[in-house]
């Protein structure tokens, strides 16, 4: 692994550590091949990568959702606040303060918006849940207007807001967002990223964002990892990653003026990548 710059990687106040984990699906398919990341408390960390790199699998490994899909962490360890969590079940992990907002929003379609929020606060044992519904409405006023509407009939943007609101209801220490921009209009995506940033600022919630949209993620993140083929190939501060030639070309779509890269260069990059990882 190489940092994009000489600055030391962000390591103080680490909340979550993935130490060289390996995930295997159906006993044979190796999806994560020695994946390591660190998420410092109170920061926003981005995890970038193309389709099939293993980003969602990483999140599911953290939140304990691999088992229903026949996946398993076979090697390495996941530590959250000093405790090993990769053998705990999902309910336990949620009550420890990790909440995953799943890809594709996954709202409960036949429940109303407000019932979705109540379901989000399921693990809460205190009675402040009602107060928290108002807090969610404060961030997403549009949900308040739609509170009694069946969630399945909300627009995509409103559903994404509901999915994040549902996570807020659990008052997580670490919120993990899986492709929050998926299928949404650019303006709406900006709005949602702004709110995520606000949640991070105002609640101190640590955030791990998995995205294909690198530009946007580097805009909000304090630190970012780039993942390919089941492992991290690059990490660094957003400003440094933006300067990196490979990132500019393959993740941000920026090339030097007027230049069109040929397939030979792509092949060259792939070779180099193998060296890097």
């Amino acid at each position, binding site marked *: 692994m190489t940092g994009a710059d000489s600055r030391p990687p962000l390591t103080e106040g680490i909340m979550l550590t993935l130490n060289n984990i390996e995930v295997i699906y159906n006993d044979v398919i190796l999806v994560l091949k020695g994946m390591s990341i660190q998420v410092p408390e109170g920061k926003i960390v981005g995890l970038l990568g193309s389709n099939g790199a293993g980003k969602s699998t990483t999140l599911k490994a953290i939140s304990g959702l691999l088992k229903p899909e026949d996946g398993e962490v076979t090697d390495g360890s996941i530590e959250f606040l000093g405790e090993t969590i990769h053998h705990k079940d999902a309910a336990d992990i949620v009550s420890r303060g990790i909440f995953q907002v799943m890809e594709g929003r996954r709202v409960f379609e036949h*429940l109303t918006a407000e019932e979705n929020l109540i379901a989000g606060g399921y693990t809460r044992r205190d009675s402040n849940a009602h107060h928290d519904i108002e807090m969610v409405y404060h961030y997403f006023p549009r949900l308040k207007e739609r509170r009694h509407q069946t969630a399945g009939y909300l627009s995509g943007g409103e559903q994404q807001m509901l999915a994040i609101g549902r996570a807020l209801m659990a008052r997580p220490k670490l919120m993990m967002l899986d492709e929050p921009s998926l299928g949404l209009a650019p303006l709406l995506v900006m709005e949602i990223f702004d709110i995520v940033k606000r949640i991070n600022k105002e609640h101190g919630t640590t955030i791990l964002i998995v995205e294909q949209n690198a530009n946007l993620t580097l805009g909000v993140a304090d630190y970012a990892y780039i993942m390919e083929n089941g492992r991290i190939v690059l990490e660094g501060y957003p400003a440094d990653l933006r300067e990196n030639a490979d990132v500019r070309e393959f993740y941000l779509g920026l090339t030097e003026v007027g230049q069109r890269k040929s397939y030979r260069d792509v092949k060259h990059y792939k070779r180099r990548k193998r060296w890097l990882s």
Partner: protein
Amino acid sequence: MDLFIQLTLTGLTNGAILALAALGFVLIYKSSDVLNFAQGEFLLVGAYVTFAMLAQFGLHWTLGMALTILIAIGLGVLVERLVLRPMIGEPIISVIMVTIGLSSLLKAIVSTIWGNLPKAFPPFIPSQPVQILGATVGADRLWAIVIAMLLLGIFTFFFRRSKEGIAMRAVADDQQAALSMGISVKKIFAWAWSIAAATAAIGGVLVANIVGVSGELANFGVRVFPVVILGGLDSIPGAIIGGVIIGLLESYTGGYIGQGLNQVLPFVVLIIILMIRPYGLFGQEIIERV
């Protein structure tokens, strides 16, 4: 006119009990997509256990009923743990076949313990005749309606307002998403089976109180199908209204047209509903977003 009121009351009683049995069925389907073919046997077990508590052990009916409900809840948890949990991830049709096996098993256990002869149910629900609008009806039938309505009201409230109820509906919608917010799907399934078994047990007691205790009670389970298909497999109000409609329909055809036809008619309704509105009167259509 008297006959009409008489038939209406009989129909409402049967309908209310059918609704109770259907409720358990809907609950299981709603939370886990499983059609429980052993629902009728849950009624049977409930009736026989209560019979044993009251007639054989001579307990007071309050204690007897409380114990029956506890046993039914235990049965629900046991079935979930031993029979259904190992089936998680298997095709739904295998799970349904397992419930058919379970129904035979329960029937066999009951007939081994209590034999096959019909027995009189210890009368603890007052049954003196009551005059309503010129028709005479047993008080026990009125009680059956009251108890069924009360239970159905409680459940409707439970599903709309309580956190556990909402969690159950959430599991029905999207198990993995529910899991991601810390809702234990296994616990929810156990809840669903327990509540289903307990309501069925109460339903069984109400029927047994009217017709006596016998293996015939299990046939009530088959009559649940027209009810849930009519009302919608996943709708609680549907179970209630479906129950009442089927109960009344049976009663009117039996009274005005002839006995025998009333056994068939519910299934005719079932076929018609399946043809014109397969998700039932109140069932959920799949929400499709474009």
